């Protein structure tokens, strides 16, 4: 799903006040069905003539289904990224000692009344903060109170990964509720993201093998002592849409401005600096305007390219 900057901004606008819970995602669809889906449909109509969705004939129903599921994944990805930006902006105000004290007090009050109620989750929603991160604040505060030494980061992380180890049963339950309901932060989400990323790398590898393109993967490159390693380096370069491709990087996310610029700086340009031009696949789409470095050697795609030209037999012959 490739969106224009304008389309992206429109969607991001819709997502701005939605808390990152499953319920709200559901609510989002209910509350903004027309807005979101209209812009979707609208986009689909417009792009149906473009080559991106010129799929095989007779597959229109399958295609719309695919688009719908892909749209949801894209929507989720955009939502997650937008939410992260929001959290980054507001992070500090939730970490003042007054805020922490106030949250902890409200938590104690809440569980004091009813330990089974989703006190922490509701608190997070109320103050507009990610539930997993709220759980972390409370857990830290709790451990400070009950232990002499301040807890280390790794201890906190392992308790969040497995709340059953939290000494306080009520808190354990509350933290658990937060983690499973948070669709943007937390160990569960990290795990899912990692799995999705890995899955797409596997997908890409299979596609490369299927196309008979030989490559070196990240592990092989590391073994050879490369200092920067894209997911795949093609042993023999190919051309995609007229552009030479030496390497391919898989990104199982939506390419928005913020993440793309970070990737450019930390990864893509570094790859270019060593291996020449290459291809980035944002499996969940990207903002069209970001694909502006094609001539310079960084090509963006939202799927595995179909238009691949390989070095032919007797290539240079006239």
């Amino acid at each position, binding site marked *: 799903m490739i969106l224009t900057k304008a389309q992206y901004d429109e969607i991001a606008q819709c997502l701005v006040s939605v808390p990152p819970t499953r319920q709200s995602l559901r609510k989002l669809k209910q509350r903004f069905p027309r807005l979101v889906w209209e812009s979707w449909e609208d986009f689909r109509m417009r792009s149906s003539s473009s080559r991106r969705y010129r799929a095989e004939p007779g597959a229109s129903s399958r295609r719309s289904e695919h688009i719908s599921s892909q749209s949801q994944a894209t929507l989720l990805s955009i939502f997650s990224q937008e939410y992260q930006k929001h959290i980054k902006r507001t992070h500090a105000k939730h970490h003042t000692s007054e805020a922490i004290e106030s949250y902890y007090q409200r938590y104690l009050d809440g569980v004091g009344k009813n330990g089974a109620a989703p006190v922490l989750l509701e608190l997070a929603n109320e103050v507009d903060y990610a539930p997993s991160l709220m759980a972390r604040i409370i857990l830290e505060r709790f451990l400070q109170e009950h232990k002499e030494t301040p807890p280390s980061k790794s201890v906190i992380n392992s308790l969040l990964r497995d709340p059953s180890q939290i000494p306080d049963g009520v808190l354990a339950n509350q933290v658990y509720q937060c983690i499973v309901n948070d669709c943007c932060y937390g160990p569960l989400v990290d795990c899912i993201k990692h799995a999705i990323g890995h899955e797409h790398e596997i997908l890409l590898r299979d596609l490369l093998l299927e196309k008979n393109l030989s490559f070196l993967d990240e592990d092989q490159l590391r073994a050879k002592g490369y200092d920067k390693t894209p997911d795949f380096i093609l042993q*023999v*370069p190919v*051309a995609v849409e007229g552009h*030479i491709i*030496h390497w391919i990087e898989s990104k199982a996310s939506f390419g928005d401005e913020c993440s793309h610029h970070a990737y450019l700086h930390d990864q893509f340009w570094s790859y270019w600096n060593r291996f*020449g031009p290459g291809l980035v696949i944002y499996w969940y789409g990207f903002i069209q305007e970001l694909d502006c470095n094609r001539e310079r050697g960084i090509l963006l795609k939202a799927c595995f390219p179909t238009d691949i030209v390989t*070095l032919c037999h*007797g290539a*240079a012959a006239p």
Partner: protein
Amino acid sequence: MAAVLESLLREEVSVAAAVRWIARSAQSSEEDAGEAAALRSLQPLRKEFVPFLLNFLREQSSRVVPQGPPTPAKAPGSSAALPGRPGGPPRGGRGARSQLFPPTESLSAAAEAPSARRGGRRRGAGPARERGGRGPGSLEEGVGAESLLWAGSRRPRAAGSPGSPSRARCDPPNLSNLEEFPPVGSVPPGGAGTRPSRRINPTPVSEERSLSKPKTCFTSPPISCVPGAQPSVLDSSPWGQGPAAGCRSLQEEREMLRKERSKQLQHSPVPACPTPEPGSTLPTRTGSLTAEPADPAKVSSRQRLELVALVYSACIAENLVPNLFLELFFVLQLLTARRMVAAKDSDLEPSPGVLDSLESPLFQSVHDCVFFAVQVLEHQFQVLSYLDKGTLKLLAENERLLCFSPALQGRLRAAYAGSVAKVSLAMPPSVQAVSFQPETDNRANFSSDRAFHTFKKQRDVFYEVLREWEDRHEEPGWDFEKGLGSRIRVMMGQLSAACSHSHFVRLFQKQLLQMCQSPGGAGGTISGEAPDVLNMLGADKLGRLRRLQERLAAPQSSCGPCPPPSFPGCQGFFRDFILSASSFQFNQHLMDSLSLKIRELNSLVLPHPEPSDEDGESDVDWQGERRQFAVVLLSLRLLAKFLGFVAFLPYRGPEPPPARELQDSILALRSQVPPVLDVRALLQQGLRAHRAVLTVPWLVEFLSLADHIVPMLDYYRSIFTLLLHLHRSLVLSKDGEGEMCFLNKLLLLAVLGWLFQIPTVPEDLFFVEEGQVDVFEVDTKTSEHGLDGVPVVDQHLLYTCCPYIGELRKLLASWVSGSSGRSGGFVRKITPTTTTSLGALPLRTTQGLQAQLAQAFFHNQPPSLRRTVEFVAERIGSNCVKHIKATLVADLVRQAESLLQEQLVTQRQEGGDPGQLLEILCSQLCPHGAQALTQGREFCQKKSPGAVRALLPEETPAAVLSSAENIAVGLATEKACAWLSANITALIRREVKAAVSRMLRAQGPEPAVRGDRRGCSRAFADQIPVLGPPTQHRLERGQARRLLHMLLSLWKDDFQVPVPLQLLLSPRNVGLLADTRPREWDLLLFLLRELVEKGLMGRKEIEACLDSLHEAQWPEDFAEELATLFNLFLAEPQVPEPQLRACELVQPNRGTVLAQS
């Protein structure tokens, strides 16, 4: 000096004698006594003659309204002494380059000059002092000021008066002031005091460069120094006031501003020059300026002009002038002179008595100028014919030239028609990064993890900086130092370990070579013909687009025929990087690395194919050879330029060269510093090995960046002396066995001429005493193994190395555009709007993409892979041609022979023309040549993969291996098929013809074949070594081989009487071999083989001769070697060579047949 010219004009001395006199110190005996006497008295002035002549011509043409920039003559101040006052005042050290002023004035002004100059200097340096002041082409911050000055000095300024008082340039000339502007022709001889100053405006002294020595470059009167043709009016011309003219005085700037305003107000190109004096006719240098027609009938004194043209041409031909192309430019300016400024009546009406002397102006009208120019061009036709096609076209189409010399025009037209030298400077390539190579770049190559990771970051910062530069350097107001300086220094600061420095320098140098190697970016390697791919697309539109692209994006070189050294395009990035980094560690490592690479490339053995006389097939190899040479040469020039830049960086600065008093101490200090690279040794080696064509161009680049002190150091002075001597010896008209190829010479003349014009090179250096020059022996005779004798330079390389030669074309083009009445400017101004969109024109065609893919394939592979594939393609391609020759062509020849047999039988009855016979045969056989391509393709496909596989390491991944094989097949096929498709028909024809004439000869002497070549023996009489001490008259191996070839063909084709070839192998003759060391057995073997192959002697006959040799008395070792040789010869398989077999069938031994007949 004038005395010499005078005696020439009076015909007391012949031109030939005069030129001999100028060129050589010793009077030769052949001169007649009177001439010798006339010249001997002038002996002390001999070396001042050429500078005098050049300055004289410039001065004489000072009233011409020209096109283009002034043509400076960098000649030391030989005083333009008038007749009767030879010599003038003694020159104190290095004088002004042109001393056309009354000595009294010079002397008086010299006193006041220093302070004024110093002040002016400061003013000039001002704008460039800020870091951001680097112009795109200037050397650097500090030197920027200097090159600005320089750029300024070449503006059509009224330059050169070394001692003229400080006066604003735009002062309107007071034409009525007879003291300032006396009529040129009215000066009485001898009166030094009344010597007129030139009718030019004085130069602001701010442009003076030296305190102690009045030294300006290019001070001889620029051709456009006419009253009214004020420099400030030239702003439409790119020569005039580019952004580089930073040395103007404030007053001037105010003046310009005022003019700008008035222009805006009036919205019309009003002559912005100062109000002309009433009554004088000042031409306006604006668009409306039309050229005066030139008429051969109106030439004033033909004889005198012819004479001067002859002397001038002779000086050019003998390389007595510093810069050949500068003189050509000057001549073309005369050819395209728009008009003459009207002079006083007395100027135009010379009294009859002084007509043939120097008293009256040489050029009295445009007609005279054009006449003179055409005369000179006639003498320089050979050089002209080697210029690019575009220039030839413009010359051939020049209506004045046609009018004045239809014959020359005809020759030029013919040269144009025959020329294939289309020169176009293509687009610079887009930036590509240096690839990561694990062998040199992975962790194992670093001392610590930290160093490894630091370098990782540095690589990224380096490219980040490069990308930013690429995006922004053309933005107005963007400044390298401000934008990137601190980031670069932070990055350099992180380099702690010495090993990291060398890593970074390697990256830097590789990137430099990748980006800047050639303006076309055609790396010359695998599919370096990116521009050609564009051409192959065929569409006329695309061609036009490219030309337009060139005009838009090619640097608008606007600095005349001698531009200062500059860093165009991407080179600017690397220069600025070095300056901003300002890290001495980095500079040192860079110098080390550059020196090493220069040594490596300079000594690279460039294989060149044996020159074979008749076979054009060596062309196949020569193309590759030329391409490789171009790549190496361009790389060397780039590296040497940067080496010179960094090496002399600490010694260059904005301040003027030190005063003489300080020089001694500086010289003492500098002379004990060893040179960064022993360039003198490399030059000497290069000259000895006959590789000047490779070594000198890069050395010139290196020296062009030297500081003012360098040429005074003994070490470098001796280099200049060598170069001067080389320059003198490169006489273009000399053409013969062992001479350097013409274009090779032309390249060397062009680069050396350019070097001699550089301000840091002392102006009197060129006109140095011969005594000093003769210290070194320079031998331009090429040996068989030297590059100099191989045609490695083509026009494309010449123009790439010396883009300023293209100024000739621009000058002619502007004449065309001017005379069509559209624009009077020198070059029409094109404002580039978007160059990137055009520049990044992607090659989307299948072929283009495949070529790109092949190119890209090598990018991330080790360099050895590429070398291997190219080597295989080269050899297989070459072998393919030989294979086709041995199979397909040989078959066809056999067919031809049998066809001929039949024909001859019938012909004997009917009688027929052998020429016709040949045509019939060829028309039957040539179509079969089409098979050559198919067979060639098959051959390459079959042979290449195995060769690649054998040469690549075992662990090469399968995909890489198969791609490498495919590319090798493709390249080999391309190479072979390109040659075959162009030459196969001619090859078949030639072979069939040879077979036919062989057979016809065998039939008996045919009148058609029998040619009168009586003169042929003279052709190589001078090459046969005279018997005598063998050591002295030893022929080079190749020469000997060639000589044998000639003899063989003479015996075979031209002798109509039997040749007693068996005498060759008589004991006495073979015995001569015993005395030579080392013994040339391979030549004897070669001779024997050729005798058999040419059908001159049968094997049996030779065997008989050899047998008889056994009986003779030999030194033991000789007898042994001889026996070995014979065994070798006898052991050779008797290949049934087609032609041999044919001969044997018809005629086993031609000698006997001829004897019988």
